[in-house]
């Protein structure tokens, strides 16, 4: 497993080098969004309106954190299941989104969009929200505050740990990993 340190925004050169199975440590700004926020972002695109943040080169983390205790930047903040964003991700990828962090497999449509527009899908350890929160140094709501835990946040992260599952070549760590250990 190759370990790579990457900083956002990501450009095509970096994205092209990332391979399924690589361990990445993400640094810089990332944005958050779950189903409800994705629905609104895509509705804006369909109306031809601007997104609440510049999506070029950015990473969206599928997360709805717990509220932060006083003095802490964020609460527990592990990934949510990604397939619920499958209906929306291709349109965001077409707009320049370069990375997504979640858990669980993506649809063929999302994987095709990742290959076409150069974007990677990474996973973080689901259910390790307390541990992951230690790499999040700042978090502020920048859009859709009414959605509560589902609001869009801008986070500053340091060495946020993730693993590349789908790269731009169409490789898929889930199917390769499972095939290696299957005994049926």
């Amino acid at each position, binding site marked *: *497993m190759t370990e790579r340190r990457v900083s956002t925004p990501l450009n095509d050169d970096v994205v092209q080098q990332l391979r399924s199975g690589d361990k990445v440590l993400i640094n810089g700004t990332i944005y958050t969004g779950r189903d*409800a926020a994705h629905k609104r972002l895509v509705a804006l695109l369909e109306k031809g309106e601007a997104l609440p943040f510049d999506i070029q080169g950015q990473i969206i983390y599928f*997360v*709805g*954190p*717990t*509220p*932060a*205790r006083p003095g*802490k930047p964020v*609460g*527990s*903040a*592990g990934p*949510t*299941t990604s*397939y619920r964003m499958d209906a929306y991700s291709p349109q965001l990828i077409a707009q320049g989104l370069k990375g997504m962090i979640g*858990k*669980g*497999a993506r649809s063929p449509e999302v994987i095709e969009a990742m290959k076409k527009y150069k974007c990677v899908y990474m*996973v973080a*350890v*689901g*259910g*390790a*929200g*307390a*541990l992951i*929160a*230690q790499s999040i140094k700042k978090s502020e709501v920048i859009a859709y505050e009414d*959605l*509560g*835990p*589902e609001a869009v946040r801008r986070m500053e992260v340091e060495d946020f740990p993730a*693993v590349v599952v789908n790269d731009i070549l169409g490789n898929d*760590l*889930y199917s*390769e*990993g*499972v*095939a*290696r*250990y*299957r*005994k*049926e």
Partner: protein
Amino acid sequence: MREVAFQDILEKVKDACMSANFELGEDVMAAFHKAKEKEESPVGREILEQLLENAKIAQKDKIALCQDTGFAVFFVDLGDEVRVKGGNLVDAINEGVKQGYQDGYLRKSICHPFTRKNTDTNTPAIVHINLVPGDGLKIVVAPKGGGSENMSRVTMLKPSDGIEGIKQFVIQRVKESGANPCPPLVIGVGIGGTFEKAALIAKKSLLRPVGSKNPDPALATLEDELLEKINELGIGPQGLGGSTTALAVHVEMHPCHIASLPLAVNINCHASRHKEIVL
């Protein structure tokens, strides 16, 4: 009649909502350690180590183990000689949930099914009340995450499908769920009863200590066999490949109609959380 104060129930429920989300049970921790020794995949072992580390941080800092602090599900054994003084039992539970999720900095995850508007209190809780003889009151809170609940299913098999049909359905369900429900899993299987009874006993089986055996030898054998087959799927910790797809399979059974063979598979993530209160 023995009287139990509304406020006592509320306070205990409030504390239990918080501690269930901060403290992973020793049975689950022991299952992680055991799995780590047997796990063939280096990535899998690393993930299990991270889950142990995560549990330590959560307990020390009083931060939720997982950001999905769950739907607050309650199983109540209410003695028929118990009366709640100063209010209603379900109201006391709901108020305890509301205060516990607020004061514990837990995520409120309950919303309207159509508008998706959050209730902002993590209520209403799901409360299952079982009337039992005596003057005891036992309340178990089991916060249930959405990711693993989404992968759960109820099906009505044909009696001719038999035990092979049951095994096939359970294994297929876990296989199709892949990484989504956050493996390593605890899998509750309810066989028999009616449509809703199968689901209820499957869910209730998740409260058993992880890896405990059903006292019925036939069901205990089925649990072992399902666990072995599920771990042969190769899904592994977080679905990245490995030999630990499930920590345990718990099977419960209930008599069913001569025409039916109901089956429920209730999947739980590795954050198998529950706390028991005895009043």
